[in-house]
């Protein structure tokens, strides 16, 4: 089991009010699964994704990632566990403007302290696969949105992570580029990478094996998709 979440709670506190963002969430994600999380704005999708991505700690409950209990780990410990195991794809790409395409993709490998030649091999391989290798020396602002998201996906997969977390990956793209990105994610999933994706888009959710619907911090429905990619 890749992810086992039990009775997970997350609350945010301001000076006056405490808001419960996630309330008793139970979720299991198997190795190799593709799960879409859906729900209206403010239902807690992104909070859940952030906790799964170890960017945030739950207030209560348990989160087990590939046999490691994550809830209650310190930031530096979470960073250690995250490195190489998780890849992130964001709606707004979050590429570093000061780095070239190549350098952006290379960054996680540097943090893994990988040797230079090995890094180069991996980066070029993934860039070629994502059909963006010809742009390796460009800076993010010089690319189209679709190209930027391909770079972001390259960066997410370059370490060969077990799990890719995608937060509305097509939200800032037109439909043609969006479909292209979804196809890439599907391809990765078919090769064995587990994917958890937050989305607003019905179309995108159909790429997933399973759709989890969140409402007011709770999972309200779960449904299985039979035919993967059948809508295209």
């Amino acid at each position, binding site marked *: 089991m890749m992810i086992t979440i039990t009775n997970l709670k997350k609350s945010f506190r301001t000076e006056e009010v405490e808001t419960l963002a996630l309330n008793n969430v139970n979720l299991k994600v198997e190795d190799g699964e593709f799960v879409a999380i859906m729900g209206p704005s403010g239902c807690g999708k992104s909070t859940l994704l952030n906790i799964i991505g170890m960017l*945030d700690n739950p207030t209560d409950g348990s989160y087990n990632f590939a046999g490691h209990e994550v809830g209650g780990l310190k930031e*530096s410990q979470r960073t250690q566990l995250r*490195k190489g195991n998780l890849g992130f794809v964001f709606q707004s790409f979050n590429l570093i403007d*000061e780095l070239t395409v190549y350098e952006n993709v290379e960054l*996680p490998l540097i943090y893994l302290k990988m040797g230079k030649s090995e890094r180069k091999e991996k980066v070029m391989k993934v860039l070629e696969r994502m059909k963006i290798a010809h742009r390796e020396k460009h800076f993010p602002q010089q690319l189209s949105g679709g190209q930027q998201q391909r770079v972001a996906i390259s960066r997410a997969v370059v370490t060969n992570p077990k799990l890719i977390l995608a937060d509305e990956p097509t939200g800032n793209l037109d439909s043609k580029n969006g479909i292209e990105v979804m196809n890439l994610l599907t391809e990765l999933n078919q090769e064995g990478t587990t994917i958890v994706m937050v989305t607003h888009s019905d179309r995108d959710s159909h790429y997933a094996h399973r759709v989890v619907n969140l409402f007011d911090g709770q999972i309200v429905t779960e449904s299985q998709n039979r035919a993967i990619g059948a809508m295209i």
Partner: protein
Amino acid sequence: MFKNHLKIAWRNLWKKKDYGLLNIFGLSIGITCACIILLWVEDELNYDTYISKQDQIYYLPTNQKYDGEWRTFFEATPGPLAENLKNEVPGIVRAARTKSDNLLFQVGDHSFTKNGRYVDPDFLEMFDFHFLEGGKAVDFHSTDIILISESLAKNLFGESQAAHNKTVRINNQSTYTIAGIYKDLPKNVTYTYDWVAPFEIFAQGKAWIKEYGSNFADTFVELSPQANFDEVNRKVKELLPAKTEDDEIYAFLHPLKDWHLRSTFEGGINVGGQIVYVKLFSLIALVILLVACINFMNLATARSEKRAGEVGVRKVLGSSRQGLLSQFMTEALLASFFASFLGILLIKLVLPYFNTIIGKSLTISFFDPKHWMVFLAIVLICGIVAGLYPAVYLSSFKPVSVLKGTIKTSGGAKAIRKGLVAAQFVVSIVFIISTLIVYQQVQHVKSRNLGYDKDNVVRIPVNGDIIKNLNPIEEDMIATGNIENIGVSNSTILSGGNNTSGLSWQGGVNTEGVLVSIRQISTNFFNTMGMQLVEGRGFSDNPAQDSTNIIVSESFAKLMGPGSAIGKTVENDYPVIGVVKDYLYDDMYGSGDPVIFFNDPSEARYLYVKTKNGVPTERALASVEGVLKTHNPAFPFEYEFVDDAYEAKFNKERLIGNLSKVFALIAIAISCLGLFGLSAFTTDQRRKEIGVRKVLGSSISGIVGLLSKDFLKLVVLAFILAVPIAWYLMKNWLEGFAYRISINIWVFIIAGFAAVTIALLTISIQAFNAATSNPVKSLRTE
């Protein structure tokens, strides 16, 4: 990893060229200023280090008691002291009397007056002489030899070797053989000498030199390396009272390391001196560097929202906090490196001007490892000081809040930023206030009524036949029509000269303790100097007639008791015939001291010439030179203007004034750079708000006001904080002067007004630009 950090740091600087340059430029000004101050400090701390026995050499000042108070005198040890010290005080291995003098050197048509010293033979062993020719094994008891410096040798003979064993005519009366040529002394030396000659020459025909009682010499001693300073000093202090049977005078050891920096004495006790300024300026260097670093911190944290995204992504991708810390530190260090580099160029550019201000010749040396070390230290310190806080702050961002976009510059960071801006302005305003007060004080003293008129008066050293021909010189000078009056005196109008105590007079009380200055002058001296007789008459033209009559200053007349001083006698033999208004000498901040004038031009050392009002200086000087060439042909015409010499008395104050002006300007410039950057940044951030406000109908002035208000509040706060600090500092500074201004409230008002105006100008450029831009543009970019 480091390469990656460096690359990012460089691209960040490059991408935000305007902010980057602002940062680097501000920092480099600070670094330049700090480096120049450090060069000066280095120079000050290295005085007299050319002497290899630094720890063993001591000077001997004397403490003497007058009016119940100990006063410290330099160049005031008696003749036999040195020899007695060497013989009677264990631990003293060498001792030398020296007497400073100006000699006229003549070789063929060349003649120069140079200052040097008559010295005892031990002097050559105590001080380091690097002889280029001769010098060693010279019999220093003979009375016809002299050792001269390399540059004097070059002046006289064109090259230094040529001077060796040559003869030179001295003062147009004796001939000495040049027995040695030594390398010039470095510039930072307390006791200087362009020549040294055997003390015997000076002592010839002066029986009083062998007696205790006349205090005239600079005496130096050398202690053995094993000697116990306290023990030796105790014995030294005992010697003079024992020899003179007078317990109101004693000599003591003044260590070489204190000669330059700690030579101010109050009540006979060392109270520091120049060291105060060394410490003060070191502190100022640090403060200015800090002010410059603040700019860097502020701009870095202000831009944090833009950098937050990058921090978040890096953390998500696995960067540790340490990694980010080192990345941001790398950026700061890189900026600091560029700034230091630019700083070196600026130093090269600015140093000559600074040298003229302070009257030194400081240089920065690329071959001096010390300078490199300091440079490196400055790069590191600036980088760390400027970068640490932003690095800690930026790397603390939580990735989840960054990515959610909920990151807002925390209130704490904003408050710190405001605090730092206010701190910068506190420093600037303190400097402005100090500058104004120092200027006022210097002007206050300079415009003080001195008791004489220093303008249009030329001072000429008396030598050769001047005294013999005084009458024809006077007649001829007046006859040129360019000269109003001439007079002579045995000491300069500006300084103390001879003095004595223990005089008695009719009706006098407590006559023992008062120190009275003695002046020997010619008839026309008072007229020449514009000094006013308040009672009685001046000296008659015939010196013989007034040979025992004296004129006294007002404060002496007061000492003589109630009623008129005219007709009273001093020491029963000298009747007072006139009272002259008090005049200031030595201490321009003090008050007029008791002086007795004798009508005796024969001992005169200075000739004063008052030129006629309206006569061009050149023409007046030509007249004087012409007359002197006729009546005193052997000597070159050397002169000094009394008002220049007077100005020179305020060198230290002027230096402080000039430096505080420079520091004020630099502090303001750096603070304004910071303010400019910060206001540009906030304006940029509020572009959308400005757009909305304009669409809703706000006026340009409304928006300028909105943007300026926050910063102006800070400057006002800084002013409120700066006033008591400046008041306290300047009150302390002014207390060092007996004659001083009282601090005027207007100084604060002017400084506050200046700071607010400068700040407002700086901010409003940005604000006005933002306010006049088309709102549609800023709204569309959102």
